[in-house]
């Protein structure tokens, strides 16, 4: 991790030179898990939303110090020195801000009064530093993906006995906890998305009454987890399960979901953009099948954060891909009124297209 961190700080220093800033102050470190990225932390992220008081300060030499913006709240785990009481060694200089919308007024006013600073918003460029991964970082993402593969091997054990969706979610989270993929608030370290419905029938309308939907023979279940794993990296994995013989419709849509992922991966070469990949998905897969595109996140970066640039939901969709970028490719096939079909895996961009890092088979998971 030392080499990884050194490389990251090198990238930050280069950005500081480009933007002509003397230091960088990062607020809302949870956005992209920036404290972990800057400090090469290997543990699980701190739980949200009770640790939003911490800041990372990068000085002109690339040394990173964690501070609190104000007196730590009794529930804050990261109890660092107050930035307003620290000597930052600044004066009449330009300070780069990352996530400036979260900069506390008490901090801004104090820094301005003490150092007569000029604030420079470098947030977008800073977040983009994370897009390209070193070989060591790719290995880290691959390790996280491998841990997700292991967790998903337990899912057939959980989809038995006519459990409710809640019971399945709890059992899966307990499996994740046994893999040490836990922060204090499990929901913010392992973000689970699950649906279930009778195979071939319409999606259940929400909210569902207690105790929730009971998963039974003849159901189709979607399970996707985006989350962190010990080691300092995140991963994602999503599959569809059918209890019993799948309907023809389900077999067909699942094949389409896998085809869509393969198509996107094949085209995810250096120079291509996420926007182009989404267009190919729409024109080559969705439109011929008479399906309407979903507007949610379907292609996005992954690293120390679960949801990094480039991604299809914002302007980074126009960023040319580069070799070494790690992406989640999870195109959604959404038949009207029904639960979606989505094959979700982690990939790395290579000269020949994106190579899948997850190893879980991509066949429809049929359980009997």
């Amino acid at each position, binding site marked *: 991790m030392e080499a990884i961190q050194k490389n990251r700080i090198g990238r930050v220093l280069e950005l500081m030179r480009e933007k002509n800033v003397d230091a960088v102050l990062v607020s*809302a470190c949870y*956005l*992209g898990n920036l404290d972990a990225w800057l400090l090469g932390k290997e543990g699980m992220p701190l739980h*949200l*939303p*009770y640790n*939003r008081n911490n800041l990372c300060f990068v000085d002109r030499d690339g040394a990173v110090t964690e501070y609190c913006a*104000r007196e*730590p*709240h*009794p*529930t804050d785990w990261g*109890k660092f020195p107050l930035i307003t009481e620290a000597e930052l060694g600044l004066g009449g200089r330009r300070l780069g801000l990352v*996530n*400036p*919308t*979260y*900069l*506390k*007024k*008490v*901090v*801004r006013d104090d820094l301005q009064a003490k150092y007569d600073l000029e604030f420079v918003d470098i*947030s*977008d460029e800073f977040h983009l530093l994370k897009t390209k991964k070193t070989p060591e970082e790719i290995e880290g993402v691959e390790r996280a993906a491998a841990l997700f593969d292991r967790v998903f091997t337990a899912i057939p054990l959980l989809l038995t006995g006519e459990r*409710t*969706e*809640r*019971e*399945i*979610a*709890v*059992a899966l989270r*307990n499996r994740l*906890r*046994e893999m040490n993929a836990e922060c*204090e608030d*499990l*929901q913010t370290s392992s*973000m689970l*998305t699950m*649906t279930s419905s009778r195979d071939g029938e319409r999606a259940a309308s*929400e*909210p*569902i*009454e*207690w*105790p*929730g939907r009971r998963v039974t023979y003849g159901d189709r279940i979607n399970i996707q987890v*985006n989350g962190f794993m010990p080691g300092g990296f995140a991963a994602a994995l999503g599959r569809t399960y059918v209890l019993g013989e799948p309907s023809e419709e389900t077999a067909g849509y699942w094949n389409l979901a896998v085809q869509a992922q393969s198509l996107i991966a094949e085209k995810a070469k250096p120079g291509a953009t996420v926007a182009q990949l989404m267009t190919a998905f729409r024109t080559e897969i969705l439109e011929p099948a008479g399906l309407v595109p*979903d*507007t949610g*996140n379907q292609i996005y970066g992954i690293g120390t954060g*679960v*949801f990094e*640039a480039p991604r299809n*939901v*914002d*302007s*980074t969709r126009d960023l040319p891909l580069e070799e070494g970028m790690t992406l989640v490719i999870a195109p959604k096939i959404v038949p009207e009124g029904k639960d979606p079909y989505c094959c979700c895996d982690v990939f790395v961009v290579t000269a020949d297209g994106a190579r899948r890092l997850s190893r879980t088979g991509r066949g429809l998971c049929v359980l009997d």
Partner: protein
Amino acid sequence: MNYKGKPMVGRYEQVELFSKAEYRRRLDGIRRVMKEQEVECALFLEPGEETYDHWLTGRRYLDLIIVPETGEATGVCLGELNEALCDDPDETDFGRYILQKKPDPLCEGVKIIGHASDRYLAGIIASGNPRRIGLVLPVNMNAFLYDEIVKALPGVEFADISIPVAIFRSVKSGEEMYAVRQSRNIQMKVMEALPQILRLGRTIGEMQWEISNLLTELGTTGVRNGNIHYNGPMDAPLDGPMNAFGDHKLQIGDRISALFEVPGPGHQVIAFERHYSIGEPSKGYRESVENAIRVHEFAVSQMKPNGISLAQIAVKTRKYANTLGLELRESLGWNWMHGMGAFFYDQYSLEDYTEDLPLQEGIMLHCHPLIYRNFPELGPNVREGIHLVNTYRIGPDGAEDLVGMPKDLIVLYA
């Protein structure tokens, strides 16, 4: 746990225990406070920190709540990405997020929007043209949001309304007390099963996994703090940090404590801790637990709605401990009496902005004064802290125990 007819939150995450009328009661109460404080708009800044987000809107992970004098309140989602890069950062698109799903229609009168730009949020705040804005937790005001508000509302005044808002929220409603009892029931089931879980030869880590899994299965949620601790042998302090003994195998002669403070459905929290002796306890261990209980009971006996404050109770408790020849731990940030309910840390609280308020009927308090056990046979300065945790509701005549479990040392394998 018969929750028949109640909806699930987040499809499968939790049962919703609160009615729309309960959410309305909370919003109406905030508006009464606003009127009393003569503010025309209230801003809850980083409301997740003291769980005002969940309490007021039924939804976690909000950055800001805007409550105008009349009309719909607005909850602003936590940003999950640098949203300035979005084509229209002000457009509410829950498809953007991984953690945050489309809101459930849990309460009326509150609209949930995506993490919009500061200028857009200032526009919402300014739409009622307030002259005075009340701030809850004003230290959390973000610099550029402040600038935009001042730009949109020249001459606007700000007032800190954290205390009156905290006072209102601290008094629990019937629905809130019902949810608190659900949290208590879940945790009590696990606590009562500890004699079966704490088996000789099992490691602390294995037993901890089992407890965590049980608490989740039974319906707890959010920030989980339900732990067993190995506290060392009978007559020596723990040789290392508490969390370094996951591989320790339970054996006769061990001291164990179990501290549960976990939110149940509705995210309502209650907390309690009990001490266990594995095998016959030594005289010193038994006495230390008895002393912790004695000091705890004294503090609790002072909790009455008769004008006394937590700061005053702390002073009296220190004097009482000293009369027993004991020392009470007092250090900045050691909030050993505090509110509980919507979160495992609510106001009122010692060492916080509500420590001088007179206690009032209907609030919940968590109590855990820490005293020291000395080990003179091991050295003049060798000692360890010990406390006992329990939760109370302040009734007309004083503290009512909400846990209902004897506080005495529990002896197993003797």
